[in-house]
C-alpha cells in the first residue's frame, strides 16, 4: 500500500459503453432517416439566411448609408459583429489544438462539435469586413495581386493583417477539422447500407482503410496541425485587436487589448459551445458522452476567462487615470456615465458579474443555469465590442465633432441574418457528419487503457512475448 492513493479520474464516458455501442450512438444519427424536427429547424434557419441575403442585397444597391453610421462613428454594428463572431470562433481550435497538446482527454467529447462551430462562426465573421466597405466591387484590392496600376496594398494597415490572419485561421481550422473527420467518415462509409452514402462518404474519407500506416500518418498530421493551430488561436484575436490598438483614438489606443481580446474570445467561444452542446446532447441523447463533468470543466474555463476580462476592464480604468491623458480619462468616464452608460453596464453585468456564480459547484453542474449564463455571456461580449467600437469614436478629441450613433433596421437585420447562416451550416453538420470524434473518444474508454495495474493498483511490468519467427529480427 503506497502512501499515495491513486484516485482514478471519473470515467469520461458514462454508461456502460463499448466501442461498438459508441460507434452506433454517434453515427446512427447520420444514418437514420431525417427526423421531422430537423426540417422544421432548417426552414427557420433558412428564413433567417434569406434575411441576411436581402439585407446584403439592399446594402449593395444603396450603399453603406443605409446603416446608422455618421461622421465621427465610421464603424458600427458591422465591425462589432465581425469581432464578436471571430471571438466565438476561438473555442473550437483551442479545444482541439491546445487541449490536445496538453493531453486533456475530456476534449474528445466536444472537440468535433466545437471545431464545426468555429468554422461556421468564422464564416459569419468574414462576411462583415467584406460588405462593410463603401465600394465592394473593388474589395479585391486588399489582396496583393499584381496589377496594371503597379500598386500594392498598404502592408502597414491592421485591416490588411486581418485579412491574412482570419483567412489563415479559417484554412487551418478547416483542415484540422477535416483531417480529424477522415476516420469517422470511413466508419460511416462502412456502416452505410445505401449506395449514395457509400460513395459520398467514400469520396470524403479519402480511401481510409484504418491500416497501421494510415493511423500513423493520421496521428502525425493531426499533431502537426495542432502545433500550427495553437499559435493561431492567439494570433487571430490579437491581430483583430490591433485594428483598434494601433489607432490614436482614446479608448482604442491601448496595449492591453491583445491578451484582453483573446481572453474575451475564449470566454465567448466556450459559452457558445455550451449553448449548443446543452441543446444538442439533449436532442440526440448524448448525455453519456457530453457529461456534466464536461460542462463543469468548461464552466471553470468561463469563470477564469471571465475574471480575466473583468480584470482587463479595471486595468483600463487604472491606466487611463495613471496615464494622466485627459482624453483617455474622459473617454472612460464617458463610457461608465455618458450617453452609452446603458451599454457599458450591460457589458459589466453580463461579463464580469454573471460568471462569478460558477464559484459554486452546484451552479457549475446545473444544466439550466449554465445554459442561461452561456447566453448572457455572449450578449455581454457583444456589448463589449459595442462599447469599444462606438463610444470611443462618438466622443473623441474635438468636442465639436461629437455625435451620437444609433443603428438602423438594416444594421439589425444583417446581424440577425448571420444567425441564419450559422444555424443552417450547423444543422447540416449535425445531420450529415458525426458530431463526436468517434475514433478519438474510443481512445478514452477504459477498454482502450492497457491494464497495467492489479486490483490493488500495484504496477505490473508487462511481459513481452516475442514469437520465435520474429525474434530473429531483433
Amino acid at each position, binding site marked *: 500500500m503506497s502512501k499515495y492513493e491513486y484516485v482514478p479520474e471519473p470515467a469520461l464516458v458514462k454508461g456502460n459503453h463499448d466501442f461498438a455501442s459508441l460507434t452506433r450512438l454517434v453515427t446512427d444519427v447520420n444514418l437514420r432517416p431525417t427526423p421531422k424536427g430537423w426540417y422544421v429547424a432548417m426552414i427557420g434557419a433558412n428564413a433567417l439566411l434569406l434575411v441576411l441575403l436581402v439585407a446584403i442585397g439592399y446594402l449593395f444597391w444603396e450603399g*453603406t448609408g443605409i446603416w446608422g*453610421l455618421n461622421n465621427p462613428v465610421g464603424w458600427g454594428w458591422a465591425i462589432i459583429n465581425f469581432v464578436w463572431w471571430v471571438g466565438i470562433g476561438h473555442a473550437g481550435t483551442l479545444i482541439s489544438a491546445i487541449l490536445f497538446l496538453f493531453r486533456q482527454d475530456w476534449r474528445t467529447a466536444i472537440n468535433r462539435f466545437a471545431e464545426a462551430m468555429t468554422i461556421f462562426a468564422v464564416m459569419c465573421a468574414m462576411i462583415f469586413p467584406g460588405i462593410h466597405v463603401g465600394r465592394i466591387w473593388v474589395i479585391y484590392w486588399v489582396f496583393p495581386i499584381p496589377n496594371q496600376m503597379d500598386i500594392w496594398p498598404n502592408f502597414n494597415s491592421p485591416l490588411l493583417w486581418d485579412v491574412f490572419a482570419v483567412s489563415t485561421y479559417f484554412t487551418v481550422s478547416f483542415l484540422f477539422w477535416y483531417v480529424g473527420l477522415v476516420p469517422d467518415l470511413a466508419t460511416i462509409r462502412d456502416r452505410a447500407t445505401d449506395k449514395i452514402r457509400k460513395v459520398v462518404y467514400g469520396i470524403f474519407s479519402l480511401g481510409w482503410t484504418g491500416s497501421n500506416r494510415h493511423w500513423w500518418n493520421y496521428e502525425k498530421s493531426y499533431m502537426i496541425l495542432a502545433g500550427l493551430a495553437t499559435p493561431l488561436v492567439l494570433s487571430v484575436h490579437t491581430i483583430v485587436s490591433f485594428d483598434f490598438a494601433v489607432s*490614436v483614438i482614446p479608448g482604442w489606443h491601448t496595449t492591453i487589448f491583445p491578451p484582453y481580446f483573446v481572453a474575451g474570445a475564449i470566454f465567448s467561444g466556450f459559452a457558445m459551445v455550451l449553448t449548443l452542446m446543452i441543446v444538442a446532447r439533449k436532442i440526440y441523447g448524448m448525455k453519456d458522452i457530453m457529461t456534466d463533468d464536461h460542462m463543469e470543466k468548461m464552466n471553470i474555463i468561463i469563470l477564469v476567462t471571465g475574471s480575466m476580462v473583468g480584470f482587463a476592464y479595471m486595468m483600463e480604468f487604472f491606466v487611463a487615470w495613471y496615464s494622466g491623458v485627459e482624453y483617455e480619462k474622459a473617454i472612460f468616464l464617458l463610457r461608465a456615465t455618458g450617453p452609452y452608460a446603458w451599454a457599458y453596464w450591460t457589458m459589466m453585468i453580463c461579463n464580469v458579474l454573471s460568471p462569478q456564480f460558477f464559484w459554486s459547484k452546484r451552479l457549475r453542474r446545473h444544466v439550466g443555469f449554465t445554459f442561461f449564463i452561456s447566453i448572457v455571456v455572449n450578449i455581454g461580449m457583444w456589448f463589449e465590442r459595442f462599447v469599444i467600437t462606438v463610444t470611443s469614436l462618438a466622443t473623441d478629441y474635438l468636442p465639436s465633432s461629437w455625435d*451620437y450613433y444609433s443603428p438602423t433596421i438594416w444594421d439589425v437585420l444583417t446581424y440577425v441574418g448571420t444567425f441564419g447562416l450559422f444555424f443552417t451550416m450547423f444543422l447540416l453538420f449535425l445531420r450529415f457528419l458525426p458530431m463526436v470524434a468517434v475514433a478519438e473518444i474510443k481512445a478514452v474508454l477504459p477498454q482502450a487503457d492497457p491494464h497495467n495495474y492489479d486490483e490493488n493498483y500495484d504496477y505490473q511490468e508487462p511481459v513481452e512475448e516475442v514469437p520465435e519467427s520474429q525474434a530473429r529480427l531483433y
Partner: protein
Amino acid sequence: MKDLEPTDHQMSEVKENTYWKSLSELAQNKEYQKFTEREFPENATELTDGVSRRGFLRVMGASIALAGLAACRRPVQKILPYSNQPEDVVAGNPLFYATAMPFQGNLIGLVAENHEGRPTKLEGNTLHPASHGRTNIFNQAAILELYDPDRSRSPLKNGTQVSIEDFAEFAASHFSNTNQRVAFISEANSSPTYQNLKNQVLNKFNNASWVTYEPFGEDNAIEGNRIAFGRRLRTLYNFDNADVIVSLNDDFMGSHHPNGIDYARQVALRRKLNDTNDTMNRIYAVEDSFTPTGSFADHRLRLKASELEGFTYALASALSGRISGLSTFSGYSNEFSDHQWISTLADELIANAGRSALTVGFEHNPKLHAVVSAINVALGNVGSTVSYLEVPHIDNQDTHQALQNVVSQMKAGTIDTVVMVGTNPVFTAAADLDFENALSNVDTVVNLSSYVDETSKKAHWHVNKAHFLEAWGDGYSFAGARSVIQPQIQPLHKGLSEIEFLSTILTGNLGNGYELVQQTFNGYYSSGFEKRWRKILHDGIDTTDNFNAVSVSLASSFNSAMNAAKENLPNTSGIEVVLRPDPTLYDGRYANLGWLQELPDPMTKITWDNVAVMSPTTAESLGVSNEDVVEINSNGKSIKIAAWLQPGHVDNSITLTVGYGREGIGRVANSYIDYTAGGVDTYPLRATSSTLFTDAQVSKTGEQYEIACVQDHHSLEGRDMYRQTTLEKYKENPEFATFKSVHGYGVPGMEEGHKLFGEAPISLFDEQEFPDKISYPEYEPQWGMAIDLNSCFGCGVCVIACQAENNIPVIGKKEVKRGREMHWIRNDRYFVGDDVNEPQAVHQPIPCMHCELAPCEQVCPVAATTHSDDGINQMTYNRCIGTRYCANNCPYKVRRFNFFNYPKEYLTTGDDPDIIQMAMNPEVTVRFRGVMEKCTYCVQRINRAKIETKIKTGSPKPEDKTVQTACQQACPTEAITFGDLTDKDSVVMQAKSNNRNYQMLEELNTRPRTSYLAKVTNPNPALA
C-alpha cells in the same frame, strides 16, 4: 425599430445630467453644462427613409452634378472643336474676366473663372475697394444661382408660358397709353443706366409713381441722417482709423451688410498682431442676439432691441456734458443712465474722440440713426472714421412711407398698372399692408424676377430675370466705386436684365443691355471711349469715389425730433419678437441655393431651418428646450416654430429670421413636411409699425420639430483646441499659446527628440520630418497653412468657397441630421466662460491638418491615402474602397464619406442635369458613392501653378502667393495664409513664426501642417 426603443429611451435618461456630471472635473459649473451641450440627436431609422430620401433627392436638385467619373468601361466620348475658334481662347485653359455682383443695389467687384465660355467660380477683384479680392457667401453662391434649374425659364402670361417677344408686343401696346396710372416698385439699384431709364419712364408716364423697396435696406440710416442733417445721406465708416468701435446692434461685418466685406477687413486688419508691440482696436457690441460681429467684439452687452433707443439716449446725455453738439440730451436721464456701460463707453469715446466710431443696425428706426450720427459728429469722427455721402441714385423719400402710400392707392383702385422690378413684396412686405390683396385691385401687374415667386404668381405678366452673370449692367459700390457688370455667358433662359426690361417697357421693343450700358459710359468718357471702355472691362472698375462726402451739421429739426423721441421710448412688455434677415438666405432671395441652405448658421450652427432663438432663461420660463415647437402670436398673426436655446441671447426676447417656409419656389426652397428644407415663414409677424421688434405672446405647443444642427456639443470641455488670452497677458507672456504654457509641461517625446534629431519630436518614422530633418525632396515646395483665430469672425465664406471650388455635394437635411455633413472645411463654434448668460463665442475653422505623420495614412489597407512629396496628405478617390478606417483614426475628424451616391442620385432626378453640371469645377473629380474625401489644400490649384511655373521659369516651386486655396482667397479678414514652408520669406512662414502659433493636438505628434494663431482680445480694464 422596436428593438432600439429601449436604447434611445435609456439614452434620454442618461443624457440629462449624469453625462455632464461625469465631466465636471473638466471644470464646469453644472448650470452651464445644460446648455453647452445639446442632447445627442436620436437617429430616425432607415425604414422611414423611403419618403424623405426622395425628399432629399429633390433637395439635391439644385446643388450637385456628375461632372466626371465615367460609369461604364468605355463610353464613346466625343470631341467638339470650335468651327471658328475665337481668339485668345485656348481650349483647356480658363480665362478670368472682371465683373461685379449687385446686392441691395451695391456692387461688389468680382473676377469670374471662365472655362470655354462657362463661368465656374467667382473670386473677389483685388482692384475693387468693396472686395479687395475677397468675397462673401452670397458672391460665392451666385454661381449656383446662375445654374439653378429652378430659375424661371420663360415669361408667363397669367401663368402660361409665352415667348419674350410676346412680352415685347404686350409692352408696346399696353404702355403706349402714357396717361395710365402706373406704379413702379423696384429693388434698390445703383446702375446709372437704370437711373436714366427710370427718369425717362417717369417722364413718359404722366401719372407714374416710383418706389424703391428693400425689405431690409439701409433706408432707416438714410432717413436718420435726414433727421440729423436735413439731407438724405449715406453713412460710410472707415474703421481703418477707428481705435474704438461701438456697435449698437449692428452686424456690420456680417455677409448681409452691403459693405460687410470691406468693413470686416478694415476691422480685422487693425487686430493683426505680428509681435507684442502691435496695437489693437477695441470693439464694443450691444446686441440682443449673438451675431458674428458680437462674437468678434472685446465686450458684449445683451440688450433688448426695444431698449437700445433708451440706452443710446442715455449715452448721448452722458456725452452731452463733455462734448458740444448734444445739448438736446443734457440733463436727460433714463433707467440706463447709471448703467456701468454708459459711463465706460462715454469715457472711451471721449478719450478716443476723432478716432472712434459708433454704428447702429439698419433695422433700427431713423431716430436712433439720427442720434448716432449726431454723436459721431459731436465726437469729431466725421472725416476720419465716418463720412456722409451724397448718393445720387437714392430716392428723396422715405421708401417705407412711399410703399404704404402706393399700397393704399392700389387698394383704393386708383392704380391701373403695377410694374415690379426684381422685388418680391407679396412675400416680404409687412403683413398688415396686405400687399397681396392690394394687387388684386390692379388691372395689370407686371413683374420681373429670377424665380416664379410669390409675387410672380400674383402677376398677370411675369418676365424671367437674367442673372447678373448673363447680362450687361453697371453700378456703384457702397462707397461709390463705379463698375461695369460684364456677362460671362449668354442668358441660359433668354431672360431680361432690369435695364433691358425697363427699356422694353419704355420703347416697346426688347432692349439691348450692351448698347444701353455703352451709351451711359459714352456719357462719362468724352474722349478715347474705346480705350477707357476696354480698361474698365479689364479692371472691372474705373473711378472709386463717385459719391462726394459732404460736410454736415445738425439740422434744427433734430432737436425737436429728439425731444419727442426721448419722451416716448419704445418698450415691449414681456417677450418681444425680433425679425432679422437670415444670415444665409438674407430676405429669402437665396432660399433655393442648396449651398446656403446647408451652410450652418454662424452662431447656432443650424442648417436648413430657421428657429426661435432665445436665451436659456427665457426658455426655462417658457418651459421649452431645443426642438420644442412654440406658438408665437403677434399683431393678430400667429406662427409655429421650433425653439432653440442660444447662450448669450438677451432674456425675454426671441429672434426669428425670415426667408424660410416657401411654397412652390424651387425644390430646395420649398418647405417639405419631412426633413427637407423646412423652416417657417416668419414675415407674417412683420408690421409696418414695428419692422424690427414687436410684442408677442409665446406658448409651448407640446409638438417637436427636428432640427439639423452640425454641432451637437458646444463646450470645449476645458480642452486646448482653442487658445486665447488678452492683450496685456500676451505682452507679459508672448509664448502663452505653446503647449508648455497651456499645460505646464512640454510635449512628451519632444525632449528625447531634441537629443536625437534636433527640433523634431521622437518618432518611429524617418521620412516626413520636414522641416527639421529634410527628407522630403528639396526640389519640391512644402505646403503649409496658418489660420489666425484673431481674424476669424465665423462668417462661413470659407465653407462655401470650398464647396464651390471642390464640387462638394449638398446632402439634404436628413443626411445632415444623421451627422454626415460633407463640408471639407468646417467652422467650429464654442461657447467659453462660466456664465451661461454671458458666454464668449469663438470660431475655429477646421480644414484637414495635412499631418506629416498622419494617422489616417497608416491604416488605409489599400494605400488610398498617402503622403505626397510636397507634403500633402493625399486622398486618392479612385483607389479608395471605403473602409472608413482613416476617418475613424483622424483625431481632427475632418474626413468626409460618401455614404450614398450623392451626385449620381441627383442626376437621376433633376429635370435637366446638364445645367447644373455646368457649375462643377472641371479640375476636380466628382466623388462616387463609397469613397472618402477631404480637404486637399486645393491641389488642383497647386498643380496648375506648379505646371505653369515649371513651363515659364523651369523652377518646380511656384512664387509665394501664386497658390491660394479657395478658403484663403475668399476670407475677407485674411485669416488664412497658405504657402511654401521651404521659403522662409513666404507669408505662411511669417505667420508660423509668430509667437501665437500653435498646433492642434500637438501632443499626438501628428505634426499638422495646418497650424493656428491664438486669439488675443483687447478688453477694457474698466469693465474687467
